[in-house]
């Protein structure tokens, strides 16, 4: 069985110029962890996830601190969130994106999801987005 029979044939994606606010709205509505970022030809050029956005909302020094729990809430999170809300996805997306061809086997896809700790894997046909694969969609299909 090939990936094209297991994938979610959902073409929800954003362009690199979509704003972070809009992206977050789509993620929330679709209950997705991440979205493929595509260009005009529907080629996958990146991926943006909830955690990339949360990371961008934290002040820079948070990432450097051994343990930031001593810091009280100064609304820095929402201050930073408002600052990035209207910025384009291209500033925060992961450009090194893993994709999988639709004719790949399920075992190979499972291996990729597991080894790279991916929560969403865009499925492509000659580089163009045709769907996505998530660990749960793959697992559910195998158990059915």
């Amino acid at each position, binding site marked *: 069985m090939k990936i094209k029979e297991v994938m979610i044939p959902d073409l929800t994606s954003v362009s690199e110029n979509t704003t972070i606010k809009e992206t977050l709205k789509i993620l929330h509505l679709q209950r997705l962890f991440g979205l493929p970022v595509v260009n005009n030809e529907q080629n996958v050029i990146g991926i943006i996830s909830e955690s990339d956005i949360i990371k961008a909302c934290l*002040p*820079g*020094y948070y990432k*450097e*601190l*051994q*343990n*930031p729990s*001593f810091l009280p809430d100064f609304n820095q999170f929402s201050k930073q969130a408002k600052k990035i809300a209207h910025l384009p996805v291209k500033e925060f997306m992961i450009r090194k994106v893993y994709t999988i061809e639709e004719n790949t086997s399920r075992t190979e896809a499972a291996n990729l999801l597991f080894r790279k700790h991916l929560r969403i894997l865009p499925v492509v046909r000659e580089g163009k987005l045709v769907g996505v694969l998530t660990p749960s969609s793959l697992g559910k299909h195998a158990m059915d």
Partner: protein
Amino acid sequence: MNQTIIAFIIFITTLIFVSLEKINRTVIVLCGALLFILLKILNQHEAFLAIDFNTIGLLTGMMVMVSIIKKTGLFQYLAIKISKFAKGNIFYLLFSLSIISGILSSILDNVTTIILIIPITLAICENLEISPVPLILSEIFASNIGGTATLIGDPPNIIIGSAAHLSFMDFIINLAPFILVLLILLPFFVRLFFKKEMSQNASKNWKRIEKFDENKAIEDPLLLKKSLISFFITITVFIFHHNLGLEAATVALSGATLLLLVSGIDPADSLLEVEWSTLFFFMGLFIIIAGVEKVGIIQWLSIKIINLTKENLPLTTMVILWISALSCSFINNISYTISMVPIIHNIGAVTSFNLNPIWWALSLGACLGGNGTFIAAAANLVGINILKRQGKIITFRDFSRVGFPIMITSIILSSVYLYFRYLW
């Protein structure tokens, strides 16, 4: 080609490549060390004998202890607690953070100090809405200065202590009081270079800093208790290690083992945090220097220095101090110190000098030289990289504009100190 020329070429090439930092420094010195063995300048037995395992053991022991203690959050706790004394005065903040960086780096390695202190400083400055640059540069300078105070504070001291049989207390008595004076003077000096930044208003948002809860920085109170007890036992034994007839490495490794025993932490985790690359860098250098010494280059250099200074102890001390400081502003102070140790031993063998002032001159020059430029010490590069990740670029010139005068002033003061304490 005779062996002396080959050895000289390997030695100089190694030093140049280590300074250029284009290829990993450990790989470079291991290549150099192995060339000495492959070309039969040294045999393997001689090479292994050349490694000073007292230095390696002391470094390993301290690395294991620090890897465990830093998990407790103690150092973050101290930094926040002390910065609160500033009460909205930006100079007091600069002063307190510099002093704590200096004191921490006298017991921790400088890079660990910087990695712990700078993020806290960034959090403080962002909440106060002030520029962090003067505070962070001052912390970097303080970490290089503070490391000079003790046997365990900076690698050159570990090397010198082992080579000259100088104890933990010898460093405390001879260097720590002077270093404390330098640490106290440092913030006043830094202030001169950052008049604009130092006039920022830090009191406006000070209430935010008051709300920092240092108690929450303590991640594991039980581990903290165990760590503190083990650490104080280790420091106490360090104070008496010469009287007890124990080498420094024995003390550090015993402390590390005691802490592993009482904390129940898996050694596999702590040992992963040991900087094996640094340890192999040391081992490679010890072998290279043994090779250079065997072919007579070290002896030749020592005679040159003695002739230059006309067997005059004060002059020799000053020459060593200044050459060390200027060299270590550009080259790695570990390779420099390992190279200088046999030269100073030779000077001692040829003359009737009391070598102690020369050892202190080497320590002060090699450690304080680290403030000269940002390539001079690992702590400088690490600190500047953290700033870079926050979008604040410090160039070579920005750093040297403040660092070089601070280094020169500290060496002038060191000259006065050494002269009046040992040579007058």
